[in-house]
């Protein structure tokens, strides 16, 4: 399990007060984890802060699952 995934999961669990078992790579923030639109904005901002990357709005729209976030961040960080 990548370091990025663990850090993303930690943020998601904390931000959405989600059951850790449900926060898998395939889990959708909105459909599986009960996030609303404001939560997704907060998540993106938390990712930006944690990884010191900028996530533009058009990219943020496509980050719908835990795996999407990990993939985007890893690409940004060149990992």
């Amino acid at each position, binding site marked *: 399990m990548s370091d990025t995934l663990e850090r993303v999961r930690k943020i998601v669990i904390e931000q959405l007060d989600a059951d850790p078992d449900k926060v898998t790579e395939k889990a959708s923030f909105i459909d599986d984890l009960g996030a*609303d639109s*404001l939560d997704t904005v907060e998540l993106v*901002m938390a990712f930006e802060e944690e990884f010191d990357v900028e996530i533009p709005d058009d990219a943020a729209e496509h980050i719908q699952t835990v795996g999407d976030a990990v993939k985007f961040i890893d690409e940004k960080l060149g990992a």
Partner: protein
Amino acid sequence: MFNLSGKTALVTGATGGIGGAVARALHAQGAHVVLSGTREAVLAELQAELGDRASYAVANLSDPDSVDGLVAAAEAVAGNPLDILVANAGITKDGLLMRMKDEDFQSVIQINLESYFRLTRAAVKGMMKRRSGRIIGVTSVVGVTGNPGQTNYSASKAGMIGFSKSLAQEVGSRGITVNCIAPGFIASPMTDVLNEQQRDAILGRIPAGRLGSGDEIAAAAVYLSSNEAAYVTGQTLHVNGGMAMI
């Protein structure tokens, strides 16, 4: 009722009549108050008067960087996250539209409205995480009624009202309320310079028959800051002796 113990509040324009009254009132209800303004000596004096639970952070609202950093600076001096933001600072540059310079329009919009955007954007992040917060914009009766010679000022104040309603809808589910207070004519150094004729003309439009006081605006700020006002959001509370009934 209206106990603010344990809360941290930032009041901009605290060196002015209304801002000072708001800061004193929030402090009297138990809040830790961070005073902000441009004049450090006046801020230090008010801080000394309030004693415990008071700090100050100098900021120049015409400087975007200074405004962007103010919430963080206030939290640093208070040692606690911000629960209450009272955006009270404002300026006027009156004149009839036909003679109004670009600079007079832009500076009023920048200091009154753009700084409200910057301050609330900074404040709301932490409030979202904590699932609670109070944002109060001090606007003006002329933002709703208009006033000749104040196109710039009334545009900025009406802008604050529309802005607050939109933000109230964005963050309502997170326990954050966003409201405005719209003072009418309040006794201040600005109204002290009016001559008797001007004064009578103003008083003739006010059913209460007198100017308001800063304390009467401060009481509205205390209410909107309180836990008791949790179900009041997106509103404008008019405190004007009845001069406009909206």
